[in-house]
């Protein structure tokens, strides 16, 4: 259908629309018009992505600025889904408009997911694929080939050079799958096609990291103008992604490997010195001029992304003591040795970067400044040496990155050295965590650079948390409720087992056999009454493993087998994918299945359990983070001191956003239905922290149920839901046709008109009042409204006095 928002014609690829989708689009447009940021919480499964894309594409095509859209999502699954939606939208637009718009949209994921090279794509690890790919595609390799040396090139990559550089793939929308297929057909590399076509795209869909990893972002921003529209979809976890992009771990093992890498480098340098000393000299002179110069012509060769570098660093000359290759390697080795000695302690240490640097200086005379240049200097050296098997230098690169980060940031970071894996462990296995505590650091360049950043998800409550944590201002924050013609989901809080004993995953009682049995019986009961698929989320892997083992011992799993197949998310992603596929097959087949997974795990992000794939979702326990974690403790302290967010508020917010995220997995569209169970005593007090659309649908009477009551309610609900429900029944209430939409707009217009008139009236009266007040001279009686306020004030004063 086609409708207008103000003067903007929007083509929406369905004949009907949800009211909240319309409201969402209106707010989105307001934000774009104002050129600011916003936080929008849209109920899960109400077509957030399609609304977003419809509006932004309409906006792009209508206004002369043609603002580019950068759409960031968390996982490849979600990128693929967004691309599929966009593709359908564009074909709908072409049909409606009668012509195909000149439009390009591409998605980008890792080389591992896009590679077509027959042997490289078989590699299991992503970093190996990256490294091998570079060894086949790097500029110097090609030069070697041209010189007649016997080196292997990737034919898929080479073929790209035969094409027009701005038209590697035809216009249109390509899904990742589609791009791979196109690449296979035309024997061209999908990864590089997408990467090189980015500047020519109207819409780019890729992972958060491309914007949050500051080095890449800086590179990309050359092509991305300031008025780009940036969207972070499924952004409820964005602070953690930000933190992740600036944190790093070093272990004894990685240090050992780094030393080996440094030794290798040393050997390579001396080899080159004897064969091609000029090259090293060239590098040296370049480094005198500054890193910016040294960096040119390596757009794609860039082998490992570097941490954020302030602008001045790039312009500055590289410090003299690390300019020579052999000096630099010695420098690195000294630093690694220092780190190794630090690892030898037996008690936990946490210190700030500043204190760490002082200690370094005291012991090794290593200054802060050369440390800051480490990462870039290493990159430059690796390039000069034309190293191919770069994955061998990965640990060395990690050390260099660590050096740069620790020397660059003073605030918002902490070094934590943990000598033991856990409290109980006796054999030391030290880890040096360099941890970012402030999510705002990584995302700051994004907010600085782009005028419109949209943060959206199904679960962002409380909305004000995000601007606070990420340090930005919004023009709009909105949480939409869900209009429903029938109660299509049933959120319940189960606090007690059938034996009335309280259930909870809190540490004191989580392994109590009674609690475990009660949880087990609840899952069993629900698998008895729920058709097709059930998803059960646990707060952590460890807990899931122990509770499943206990259920097996109690015979609870044996009973569940009578009703459902049982599948579990495993640490191995491939295995989990297969389990997921089996689960879906069993749901389609009518056999029915139960999936155990983890609230912060792989499955909870980006996998939907809509319709028969999930008729019930059960959250066993509140998915709190591991509170004994030192990193978490440090972050909590940081949040309290810098952003005035109390520890418990943050912990509970974090747990509830993940719980809500799990609940939202089961809904897609308003014809879908599902039971949502929060099974923990502690949920009762936290229900107001759920997103508005869930907490509104929760009845007071269903917030403190025992298992048997919950099962009875759910049974009733499922029976009601199984009755036929026609699209017509919700027409005008939870879905709007075009006519309904017009009616709404008319009403809105009238309302606005009325408000405006009232305001005018008030203004006029105020003006009059002022006039009269002035005329009355001094001590005229206050208007009656104020008297009331005075009363209240008096009351309050009385209270104070008491």
């Amino acid at each position: 259908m086609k409708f207008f928002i103000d003067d903007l014609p929007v083509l929406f690829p369905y004949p009907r629309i949800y009211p909240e989708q319309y409201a969402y689009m209106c707010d989105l447009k307001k934000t774009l018009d104002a050129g600011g940021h916003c936080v929008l919480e849209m109920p899960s499964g109400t077509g957030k992505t399609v609304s977003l894309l419809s509006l932004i594409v309409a906006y792009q095509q209508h206004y002369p600025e043609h603002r580019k859209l950068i759409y960031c999502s968390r996982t490849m699954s979600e990128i693929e889904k967004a691309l599929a939606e966009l593709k359908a939208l564009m074909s709908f637009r072409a049909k409606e408009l009668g012509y195909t718009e000149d439009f390009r949209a591409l998605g980008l994921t890792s080389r591992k997911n896009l590679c077509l090279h027959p042997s490289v794509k078989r590699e299991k690890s992503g970093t190996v694929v990256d490294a091998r790919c570079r060894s086949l595609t790097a500029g110097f390799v090609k030069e070697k080939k041209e010189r007649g040396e016997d080196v292997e090139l990737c034919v898929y990559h080479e073929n790209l050079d035969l094409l027009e550089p701005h038209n590697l793939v035809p216009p249109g929308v390509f899904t990742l799958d589609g791009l791979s297929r196109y690449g296979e057909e035309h024997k061209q590399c999908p990864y590089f096609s997408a990467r090189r076509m980015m500047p020519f795209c109207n819409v780019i869909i890729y992972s958060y990291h491309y914007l949050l990893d500051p080095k890449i972002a800086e590179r990309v921003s050359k092509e991305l103008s300031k008025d780009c529209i940036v969207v972070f979809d499924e952004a409820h976890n964005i602070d953690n992604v930000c933190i992740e992009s600036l944190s790093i771990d070093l272990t004894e093992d990685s240090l050992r490997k780094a030393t080996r890498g440094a030794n290798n480098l040393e050997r390579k340098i001396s080899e080159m010195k004897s064969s091609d000393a000029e090259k090293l000299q060239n590098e040296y002179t370049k480094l005198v001029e500054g890193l910016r110069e040294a960096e040119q012509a390596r757009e794609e060769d860039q082998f490992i992304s570097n941490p954020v570098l302030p602008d001045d660093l790039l312009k500055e000359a590289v410090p003299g003591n690390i300019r020579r290759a052999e000096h630099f390697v010695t420098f690195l080795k000294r630093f690694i040795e220092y780190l190794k000695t630090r690892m030898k302690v037996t008690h936990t240490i946490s210190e700030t970067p500043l204190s760490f640097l002082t200690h370094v200086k005291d012991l090794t005379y290593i200054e802060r400044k050369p440390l800051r240049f480490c990462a870039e200097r290493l990159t430059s050296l690796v390039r000069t040496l034309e190293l191919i098997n770069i994955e061998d230098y990965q640990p060395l690169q990690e050390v260099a990155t660590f050096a740069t980060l620790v020397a660059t940031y003073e605030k918002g970071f902490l070094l934590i050295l943990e000598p033991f894996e856990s409290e109980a462990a006796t054999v030391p296995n030290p880890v040096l965590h360099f941890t970012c505590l402030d999510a705002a650091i990584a995302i700051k360049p994004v907010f600085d650079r782009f005028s419109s950043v949209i943060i959206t998800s199904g679960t962002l409550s409380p909305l004000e948390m995000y601007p606070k944590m990420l340090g930005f201002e919004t023009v709009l924050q909105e949480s939409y409720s869900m209009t429903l013609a029938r109660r299509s989901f049933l959120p319940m809080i189960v606090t007690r087992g059938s034996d009335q004993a309280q259930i909870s995953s809190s540490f004191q009682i989580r392994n109590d056999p009674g609690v475990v049995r009660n949880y087990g019986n609840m899952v069993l009961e629900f698998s008895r009454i729920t058709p097709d698929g059930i998803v059960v989320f646990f707060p952590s892997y460890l807990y899931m493993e122990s509770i499943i083992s206990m259920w097996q011992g109690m015979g609870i799993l044996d009973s569940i087998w009578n009703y459902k197949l049982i599948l579990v998310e495993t640490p191995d992603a491939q295995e989990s994918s297969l389990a997921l596929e089996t689960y879906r097959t069993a749901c389609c087949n009518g056999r029915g299945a139960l999936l155990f997974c983890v609230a912060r795990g792989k499955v909870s992000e980006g996998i939907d359990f809509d319709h028969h794939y999930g008729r019930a979702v059960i959250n066993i326990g509140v998915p709190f983070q591991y509170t004994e974690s030192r990193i978490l403790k440090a972050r909590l302290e940081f949040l309290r001191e810098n952003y005035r967010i109390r520890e418990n508020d943050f912990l509970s917010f974090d747990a509830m956003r993940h719980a809500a995220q799990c609940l939202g997995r089961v809904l897609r569209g308003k014809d879908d239905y599902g039971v949502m169970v929060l099974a923990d005593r502690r949920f009762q007090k936290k229900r107001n922290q759920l997103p508005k659309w869930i907490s509104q649908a929760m009845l007071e009477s269903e917030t403190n149920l025992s298992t048997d009551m919950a099962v009875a309610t759910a049974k009733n609900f499922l029976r009601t839901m199984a009755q036929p429900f026609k699209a017509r029944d919700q027409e005008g209430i939870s879905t709007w046709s075009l006519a309904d939409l017009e009616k709404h707009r008319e009403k809105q217009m009238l309302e606005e008109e009325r408000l405006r008139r009232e305001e005018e009236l008030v203004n006029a009266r105020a003006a009059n009042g002022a006039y009269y007040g002035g005329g009355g001279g001094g001590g005229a009686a206050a208007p009656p409204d104020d008297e009331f306020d005075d009363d209240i004030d008096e009351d309050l004063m009385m209270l104070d006095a008491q």
Partner: protein
Amino acid sequence: MSPDQQSTPATSPKVMLKIHVLPPNAADNTPEQYVFNFTAGANARAEADAIKDALSAAIQAAKAAQAAPTPPVVAAGAGGSGGGGGSNEGVSAAMAMANAITAGGSYGKPWDDDKRLQGDMELQQSLLKSNPQLQRMFMESMGTKPETLSAGQFMKQFWSTRLHLLRAHAIERSQTRGSYNVLSTLKPRVEDSVTKLNISKEQIQLIFNQHPLVKQVYDENVPKLSETQFWSRFFQSRLFKKLRGERISETDATDAILDKYLKADEHGNLRDAQVPHFLDLAGNEVNHSQRRGNRPDLDMRPSSVEKVPIIRTLNNLSEKIMANVAPADAIPQANGDTEDDTYNELQLRDLRGDEEQRRILLNVKDQSRFFSSQSKTDEDEESRLFAQQDPNRILNDLRGEVDQNLPEGGIVPIGRLVEPEEDDDDDEKKQASQVGSRANLKRASSQILEAIRDRRTQTEVSAISGTFGLSSALYDRLTLTHATSTEFLHQFWQAFLSGNPDRAGEVASLVESLNRAMDRIKAVQQDAEAERQVEVNRLRRHAREVLEATGKKLRINLANVAGGEQAVTRLLGPTIRALETALTKYKDALAEEMKEMPPA
């Protein structure tokens, strides 16, 4: 001969090809097996594949050639568990699945192929057995078919129109009850301080299927141990615990024989299936290859599989149970569909427009010839009548009528509006023609009721409920006669319209059976009439008796006695007409033929 082949799945290190051959004169139907081991190291897989492809092409060709009654060829899925034991049994489930997949991919399911359905005698028999009505019709038609038509030809024709039934039956038969996790259902109970456990043959079968390892153990040990010994030891063994996914503790009893198998890995073959992007967790994990960040917290670090064996056991078992079902999210081989599928999955179903109804348009070119000539002229007359009228005059008349019946001022007795004809009921003719007259209303209502009644009888599912006054035996005969007549008509038209001169003889014989069909209808008519006569006589006699006994004269309404020739004629009217048409058409054509080709 019915060759069938199996090979190890692509992931397994051992490359084997197993061929079952069922020699035509084999005793007790046991297939001969040939197992080929490929030992060429890295090339083994490629070689095996090449040979397999060639073989399957040949088998396909052979199967297609013998389209005529074939022995069951659908045994592919069950092949794995049927043959002799040995290590190759370890992959039976996977093989069955692989077979199912190749069956789905390359040459389609058996029910997709019309020829195969038509040729599958066994399937037809089973359908007939399950559908007695069809069976009766089949037998009747078979019995009355013309001599010249061979049984094979007849069957072919009979089934050619019932392919959909065959297809439905084939699909129905292929649906079997899925298996279940058998080990979880076995619960020992304690009776008189003795632990007992009952286990049925089916359960053992299932255990062997789900846990090929048990089958291997059984195979290798049972002659030495007795059957009961084996099972009682098995259920107490560590092996049993391991298969159930339980952790083995130090205190568990050891078993000299069974513990040897503890090391054997059951989950060797993790299939390397491709999953679509939107499910690909592995792909998600490597979405960003330069991921940094601190390692996960202690409780988010999964422990090793050995510590919690149950997790892998659960997935493995479920996968095994679902192995025979085609995956719901398989990537279709054909290009292009995947994206549509992905999008369909993503669509908000309730926002979509109302779905267009899919109707099959009946394309009838000239409808008029379906109506008898008489009604045609009727219609024409009527339309002519209308055509002659002058609209102005009619409007004037109507206005006058309104003026006459509804006096000015708008006040009018309600009765007049409803039955505005009181004053002139003497004039029948006028009354009938007047709009809204009582007679007209009556006529209209009866017409409507009649139409409703007709409609009901037409749509009524169980039209058999009313036998139209015929005895049920006679009615059965009538329906059967109708069915067979239709069958022969169908066959006649097929042959007649084929334009194939070779089938002339067949047509002639079919005309013969059409004539016979006509005779059969006549016979039914006569019998029905006789039956009705009996009833009429009975009523007459009854009336006479009443008259004699009471002196009262009963008025019997003979028209109320239903059934008889009339009823049959009414029911079979269309058939009779169709038969007549067919016969005249044939005669005309024959005469034409004769004219063109005078007998030499």
